[in-house]
């Protein structure tokens, strides 16, 4: 039945009728071309933005909340309002033990440090950290390693520095690992260097072991803030509420005191952004598919008009012995052929636009669009849909064409 598709004559007929009516053909194709171009372009760009988000936050535990102590706003159990609240390691431990849905609790400290190397110096932020930090906020290490448990256990004077600090304290191409720098007049050995990513929580210039930090800043059990990461399925807002309530209880703070603890719920903000992304994707699909449909209907419409124009021709063909099936087949093949050609052109030009976008905005680590692309499956599916729609839409003019009796078609005006 489909043998005719491989016959030169079929395509000669299609070519003749399409090429002899160029304006009509081009106008017809424009709708589908534009529809699929838009679909590919929008989907690819949305993917690019999504990719750039993922790259930005990929190394970061996004389902997390930061909590720090402030001062109370309500008197409670004999304490006046305005009491300074400091979180401790015990608080962190209790939170981790008692709250449901928690993956990690990472206690952190940060302070300013005066850093000297040879004749270069500067004031930078110094953070005291556990190796755990590397799990929730992956450091992109260029050289060396991050702090490990042994550093913690032995209160080692080692430091992991950012690339920016390296550039300020070291000569170009100078080996940093194993070198010593002075932090607050104490020698620290550089064990690692990381690349600063555009996102990764509060910016820090260098990390030293938590225990070492406790010693040199005389912190005792106190911590600056804790980063609480929830399990992927956990509701991070609930985790935040539970943790705060527990902390108030532990620190003898009024349960309704809203100012005792400050927090930043990263999970909540991130959900907003991903919600925006999926909204954008939905819109993309909707717009693309709607345009595609409009394009296919335009083809049907124009074919219908041309059938009217070609009534006489179809009548002649039938008088010469064309069966209704052959006429229908001819019109459907024409419809499918222009949909496919227009679709392919749309895919190609959509792809070219994505390549151009990638060239313009997709380069470097700060790229707005990362690898804007459309999966081959989607391209394939949309082609199949096009073929099906093309066939269906071709059926309308085809049936119209054969419903006209040859005698009516040939009647002299």
């Amino acid at each position, binding site marked *: 039945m489909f043998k005719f598709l491989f016959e*030169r*004559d079929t395509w000669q007929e299609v070519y*003749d*009728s399409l090429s*002899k*009516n160029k304006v009509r053909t081009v106008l017809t194709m424009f709708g589908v071309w534009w529809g699929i171009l838009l679909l590919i372009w929008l989907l690819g760009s949305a993917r690019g933005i999504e990719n750039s988000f993922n790259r930005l936050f990929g190394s970061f535990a996004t389902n997390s909340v930061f909590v720090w102590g402030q001062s109370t706003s309500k008197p409670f159990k004999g304490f006046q309002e305005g009491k300074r609240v400091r979180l401790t390691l015990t608080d962190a431990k209790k939170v981790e033990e008692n709250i449901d849905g928690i993956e990690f609790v990472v206690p952190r400290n940060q302070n300013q440090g005066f850093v000297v190397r040879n004749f270069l110096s500067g004031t930078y932020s110094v953070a005291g950290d556990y190796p755990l930090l590397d799990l929730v906020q992956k450091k992109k290490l260029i050289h060396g390693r991050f702090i490990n448990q042994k550093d913690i256990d032995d209160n080692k004077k080692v430091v992991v520095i950012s690339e920016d600090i390296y550039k300020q304290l070291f000569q170009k191409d100078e080996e940093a690992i194993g070198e010593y720098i002075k932090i607050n007049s104490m020698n620290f050995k550089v064990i690692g260097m990381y690349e600063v990513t555009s996102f990764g929580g509060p910016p820090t210039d260098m990390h030293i072991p938590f225990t070492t930090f406790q010693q040199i800043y005389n912190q005792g059990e106190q911590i600056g803030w804790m980063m609480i990461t929830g399990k992927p399925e956990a509701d991070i807002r609930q985790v935040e509420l539970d943790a705060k309530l527990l902390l108030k209880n532990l620190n003898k703070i009024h349960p309704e005191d809203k100012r005792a603890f400050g927090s930043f719920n990263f999970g909540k903000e991130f959900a907003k952004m991903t919600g925006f992304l999926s909204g954008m994707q939905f819109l993309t699909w909707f717009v693309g598919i709607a345009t595609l449909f409009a394009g296919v209907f335009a083809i049907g419409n124009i074919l219908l008009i041309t059938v009217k124009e070609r009534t*006489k*021709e179809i*009548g*002649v*063909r*039938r*008088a*010469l*012995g*064309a*069966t*209704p*099936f*052959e006429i229908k087949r001819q019109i459907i093949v024409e419809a499918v052929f222009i949909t496919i050609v227009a679709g392919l052109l749309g895919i190609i030009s959509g792809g070219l636009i994505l390549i151009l976008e990638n060239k313009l905005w997709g380069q470097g680590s700060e790229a707005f669009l990362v690898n804007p692309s459309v999966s081959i499956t989607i391209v394939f599916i949309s082609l199949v849909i096009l073929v099906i729609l093309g066939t269906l839409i071709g059926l309308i003019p085809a049936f119209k064409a*054969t419903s006209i*009796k*040859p*005698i009516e078609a*040939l009647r*002299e005006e």
Partner: protein
Amino acid sequence: MLKIEKLHKSYPIGDSSLHVLKGIDLSVESGEMVAIMGSSGSGKSTLLNIIGMLDEADEGNYILDDVPIKNLTEKKAAIYRNKFLGFIFQSFNLINYKNALDNVALPLYYQGLKRKERIEKGLFHLEKVGLRDWAHHLPNELSGGQKQRVAIARALAANPKLLLADEPTGALDTKTSHEIMDFIQSLNDEGKTILMVTHEEDIANMCKRIVRLRDGVIMEDKFVEQVRASQYV
């Protein structure tokens, strides 16, 4: 060759219907050249359309080459049209975006012939109507007479048993009309059966038999002395 008995045809017009053919009996032998005449509305075109299987009769029998033509599906009708009949129209009805050769070869395409064979046969028939040199011209590059000759070549291409012509000279001037008639006569001389509708007395006289219709019945059916068109050319 062709036998029609008690043929009736009416067309619905609003609520009532128009009885166009009221019992036509006609039989045509092989090799005849018949002119069907009549004023407009006499039913001559309807008769030709029924003979050409473009339309169907309400009542009566129609036998073409021993094949009863009745209750045909569109597909069967198309195959019979292709096999038995060649059409020549008043307004030529060439496909305007196909060149002369492709137009002539079109019925062969629907016969399922290979392209090479189609071109060969198409050129042969163009040669026959004297337009071989014009094979690759589009219809709008041809004169009226040339167009009609291409149309005749197309009608001949499938080697039909019966040629049906609907006012073949209706759109042509006298001189060209005579040339076309001369050619049609020569086809008849070779043995083709030809049936044509015309309302021009002199064209009808170039046939061998004249059937006059009036109000859906045959008024007169006579054999005439054929006037040769060649004497005017």
